[in-house]
């Protein structure tokens, strides 16, 4: 068993040693295709996770005509918190609204010099339970709240977020189409390179069959070689896309999505990295299966 395994690997490495150029061509093709794929996946993944983060922040803000008495406030709160969609209610009085506004202005906060707290309305910030964080639920809640005439104005729109998600859907679709196209192109090239290596070794294949090798015995080293090339290409792609990410993509995405700092921009997690390597291996395997079908006949 061990003997046969050693023999198998000796055959694989002999093959690779005999046609290093073709072998690197196959590895290179897989590497390039998967790098491009990983690059676009990173863009989509990051925009998507950011969008998910934003939609978590969906909440309803109800602005009040005037600050209510504590008793009334408690009555309202209890009423709102009893709604099934509502997770929490937070009261922001005029003082706090002004303080927040100031801190948001930062160094420009002296613009507010001389204004009192009365310029900003008090508000109720109503956050929704996770499964209700969408436009319809927000509208239902707001519909009920409108019955209270003292709640003057509501802000829950996030219209742009929905448009953004439609755009994201398009982006995802584009990435999938591009991915399929790339994988097919890579498969085609890999299958043909392997076909060339088989052609270069057709004598050996013929003699093997003549001295009684089973089809599997003939094929397995080539399948293994294909898988190895695919795996190697995938590792190179992983390295390549990590380099692209570190030196280029991270800053690009930070600028594009105007997030602060690069921490929210992530590289592929380990499952996605495994998936990439698996895709490479599959690419090499299928490539060899396709070309072997034409070459090994007994």
């Amino acid at each position, binding site marked *: 068993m061990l*003997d*046969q395994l050693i*023999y198998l690997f000796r055959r694989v490495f002999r093959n690779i040693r*005999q046609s290093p150029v073709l072998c690197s061509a196959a590895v290179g093709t897989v590497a390039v295709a998967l790098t491009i794929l990983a690059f676009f996946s990173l863009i989509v993944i990051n925009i998507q996770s950011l969008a998910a983060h934003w939609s978590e922040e969906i909440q309803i803000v109800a602005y009040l005509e005037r600050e209510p008495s504590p008793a009334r406030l408690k009555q309202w709160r209890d009423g709102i918190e009893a709604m099934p969609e509502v997770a929490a209610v937070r009261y922001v009085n005029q003082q706090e609204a002004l303080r927040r506004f100031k801190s948001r202005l930062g160094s420009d906060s002296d613009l507010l010099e001389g204004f009192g707290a009365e310029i900003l309305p008090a508000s109720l910030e109503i956050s929704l339970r996770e499964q209700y964080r969408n436009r319809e639920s927000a509208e239902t809640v707001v519909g009920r709240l409108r019955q209270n005439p003292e709640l003057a104005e509501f802000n829950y729109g996030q219209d742009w977020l929905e448009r953004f998600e439609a755009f994201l859907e398009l982006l995802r679709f584009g990435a999938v189409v591009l991915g399929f196209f790339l994988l097919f192109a890579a498969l085609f090239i890999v299958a043909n390179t392997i076909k060339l290596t088989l052609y270069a070794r057709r*004598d*050996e294949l*013929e*003699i*093997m*069959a*003549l*001295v*009684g*090798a*089973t089809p599997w*015995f003939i094929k397995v080293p080539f399948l293994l070689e294909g898988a190895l090339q695919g795996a190697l290409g995938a590792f190179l792609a992983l390295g390549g896309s990590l380099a692209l990410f570190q030196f280029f993509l991270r800053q690009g995405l930070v600028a594009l999505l105007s997030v602060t700092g690069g921490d929210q921009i992530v590289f592929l997690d380990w499952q996605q990295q495994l998936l990439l390597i698996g895709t490479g291996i599959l690419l090499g395997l299928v490539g060899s299966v396709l070309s072997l079908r034409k070459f090994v006949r*007994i």
Partner: protein
Amino acid sequence: MIHLYNVCKNYQKDAASALHNLNFKIAKGDFVYITGPSGAGKSTLLKLLYCAEKPSRGQILVNGKNITRMGSSHIPQLRRHTGIVFQDFKLLDNRTLFENVAFPLEVQGKKRFEISNKVYQALKHVGLHGKLQKYPLQLSGGEQQRVAIARALVVDPLILLADEPTGNLDLEVTLEIIELFKKANARGTTVLLATHDQEMIRRFPRRVIALENGQLVNDSAP
């Protein structure tokens, strides 16, 4: 050992048949020449025997097995008991003599020490055990054919098929090669040798199966 019943072979549907209604028996341990002019069907007959081609009609029994009814998964097993030698040697030029002769044993998954032993013995039989690490292209044509014969015999085949093994070689070397086939035959291997070299048949008379246009025209033993 080999038994043909009404064997026909047409490569294309309506082309003239390469073999036509062949019937003969070859006993175990026989030495048989297959002769005939070019295009007579000698190579085709051998190809049927190692299952590179299937007969269009008729049955072939080899060692009691009907190889025309046998599934293709059994072909490797048949070939492991069949040594094959070609006019153009079919050696692997990027492997040493040792590796070339070891090839059929590796394919059969034999153990390492068993392989080295048998390969050495087989190369010794053909007188090339001093050149284990040489490559085929460093040898003369006759030596290359001896390597090919060693490769065919290293598995102790029941049957040895040779398709014009001396076609490229001069008389002196031909005689050496024939000597090797006779030695193998003496050890019990059934030998089928396709040739149109009448000189060879005259010097080593054996049973002759003569083909012409795919038909058996003469089957005579000395």
